[in-house]
Every structure is written in structure tokens, then in C-alpha cells.
């Protein structure tokens, strides 16, 4: 399954005022809905806000996407993709 993902897009919202990270993440998920649903794209949201990490994970998880959170040093990376195809780029 993992080889289906052709590209990933990083969206950096570190340091932005709340609720920018959550709204940006939801907007980007919506904008790339087609590619995400087909499994061709993985979105990586880079954020440093605790609350946003939990809320983005919950909201996109409820939309049916697979969500993984990784600690990347001074920020977190939330990877959003079609169920069970999240991979490490």
C-alpha cells in the first residue's frame, strides 16, 4: 500500500497564533481532498502547539484519515493520509 503515495506536502504553522494551525490544517486537507482520498498524497502539518496537535489529529481522524504524530525536536509533525498509507518521507 505505501508505494501508492507519490508525494508529500509540508505545511509549517509553527509559532502562529491560535487557531491558525487547526484552521490551516483543515483547509489544506479540504483543498487536497482528492489526492488524499486516492492515497497519492500525504500532508505533513508542522506545529508546536499542543492543543492543535490533539485537535488536528482528532478532527482529521474523524474524517476517516490515518493520522500519525511524530516528535521532530523543536516541533511536531502530524502526517495525514488515506487510512493505513502514512509513511515516513
Amino acid at each position, binding site marked *: 500500500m505505501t508505494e501508492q503515495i507519490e508525494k508529500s506536502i509540508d505545511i509549517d504553522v509553527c509559532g502562529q*497564533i491560535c487557531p491558525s494551525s487547526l484552521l490551516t490544517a483543515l483547509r489544506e486537507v479540504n483543498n487536497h481532498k482528492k489526492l488524499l482520498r486516492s492515497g497519492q498524497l500525504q500532508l505533513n502539518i508542522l506545529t508546536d502547539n499542543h492543543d492543535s*496537535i490533539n485537535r488536528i489529529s482528532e478532527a482529521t481522524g474523524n474524517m476517516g484519515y490515518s493520522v500519525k504524530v511524530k516528535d521532530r525536536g523543536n516541533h511536531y509533525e502530524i502526517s495525514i493520509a488515506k487510512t493505513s498509507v502514512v509513511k515516513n518521507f
Partner: protein
Amino acid sequence: MDNQLIIIVISAFFGLTSGIIMHRSDFCIAGMFRDLFLFRNSPLLRSLILSITFSMLLFEVARLNGFLNHELPSSLYGLPSLTNIFGGMLFGLGMVLAGGCVVGTLYKLGAGSFPSICAFLGLLAGSALYAEFHLTWKKLSLSTRLGDAATLPQLFDLPRTLIVCVLLIFMGGFLVRWQTKGALLLPNRVKGYLQPRTAALLLAVIGSFSFILLGMPLGITTSYAKAGSFIEQLIIPGHVASLGYFQGRGFQYFSPISNQTLKAGAGPFWDGLALVQFPLILGIVFGSAVSAFNMGKLSCRMNIPFRQVFSALIGGIIMGLAARMSPACNVWHLLGGIPLLSIQSLLFTFGLFPGAWFGTFLLTRYVLKS
């Protein structure tokens, strides 16, 4: 002022622990009100209600056991006026635009948030700006006064314990329901995250000990004005000397540790307010910085969209002004005044809702545009 060092150490400790707690739980009061209008759902607001309810219980238990003998009206919470509602509205607008309230700004600043540094500068400027029209505002506040009752028990002429019990049962009912449904527990994916409900209980305990030991609940905004006046004093000392607001020392409270009534004001001098609030402010910033460093997340990102930085600065100025006009900030009113059943604090809180609604409207329409 006796035992100054003890007061400074205790207040700094309260600040430090509050900073760690708020950073770990992201206890953002501005976000709690904003999300109510943005998403029509604010899970964090339930934790705030928990904190207010628990503070009310702790204050009353402390009072009944003789540890807290604070009678209203006082310098801490005066008589209600229409200006309390207006101040609350302006404060609600400011905190949403700034991306954090007066305390939220501090813990976010401690973790390295650039917009919060701008909001902090705005808060200092706004608080100092209030001194320019303090007399006019004071007159307006007096002319729009709403009766001679400072608290709900005084208004209804009922025993305080009875009203506290009724409110505890009412709010406790909601809290038990939320707890049973798991609505107080938030989903978590972050290592080191503190559940907001735990933070709410801990902050209520810290606020209660602050009131019992230091003579005032958690609050910091008069010291924002004071810090602003220190800076203004360096630039235009003659003007500062001409402003009545910066020269007065009308604020007074009993300090249990000093065992005396301390007088204080917003001007550039060391007094009973600076003694408690400056260590608290520094403690929150330092506590949050330590917490962020410990998680490996202490960093300052400067590449923030200009609209957000501008919004934080303007929000800070509005919040600084509003905190003086209310008078006092959200933490002072929500975690101190409402548990004391202060009508002034209730009016301020009513004002927060339309203010936060308007702030959310401006934020989504003009600030967070893609």
C-alpha cells in the same frame, strides 16, 4: 512592608508552578471563549468551569474555617457598574485577537511565541495608555453604577453559604455529567501533556493559597500598567508625574504575611502590588520556559504572517486598555471574583462573550486569510 522576601518567594513559586501547568495543558482561556464561536464547541471551557467551581468551594471552605476574611466591596472587587460589562467586551475582543489572555500571553511568551511577545508589548502600552483617560473613565464608572450590592448574597440579602451551595450543586451537576460522559478528558497524542481538568484543579488550589497567604487571588494586570509606567518614566518623566493614575496609591489590601494593610498603585514605584505581581509574572514566564525546554520545544519562530503579528499587537493593546477599564483581568475576575460571587466579575464575564464573538469574526475574516 514586613517579610517582603517571603512574599516574593511564595509568589514566584505560584508563578513558576502556574507557568508549568498552563504550558503543559495549553490552558488557553482566550481559546476557550473563541472556540465557542468558531467551532460552536469548546471542550476546554468545561475545564474553566471546573476551575471556577472548585475555587468557589475552596474559598468558602477557607472562609468558614477562618482562613479567608475578605469582605466586599474592597479594592480587589468594587461595586458593579456598566463599565464592567464594556470592559469585559473589550477584553474578550482583545484576547481573541492577541491569541491569548493576559496570563496566556505570558506562558506562550515563555515558550518562545513571537506573536505573544508582541501581545505582551501591546499589553504594556495599552495599560499605560489608560492613564491618559483614567479620570474620565472613573467618572463614567461612578455615573453608571448599578446599586450598592457588591456580591450576590448582598443583592439577594441571603447567606453567602446558601448561595454558594446552590451554585455548587448547579455547576456540580454539569461537571458530574461531563465527567461521566468523559467530556472532561481530552484526546491526547503529546508526551508530557497535562489534561486541562487536572490543570483546572491545580490552578484553583494555587489561586486559593495565593488569596489565603498573600491576600489576593491570581492577577497581574495592574503590574502591566506599573511596568508600562516604569518604561514611560524613563522616556517622559514629566508627563508621568502629571498623571493622577500613576501617582495615586488608592489600592489597599491586607497582607497576611506582612500582617498589615498595604497600599499600592499603578505608578512607577515598588509597593504591595509589585511585591506580589512582578514575581508572579516572572515566575509564569520562567516556569513555561522551563517546561518548554524540558520538552525540547523552546524555540522562537519569527517567520509569522504579518497579519497575525499585527493582530497580536493590537489585541494586546486593546486587552491592556480593557483590563484597566474593567477594572482587572479575566483571571482575576474568573478565578477570583466569581468564586467570591462578585457582581462586578459576573458583569465582566457576561461582557467577554460578545467581545470574544466579535474578535472571532475579525480573526477569521481579516487575520487568518489565506
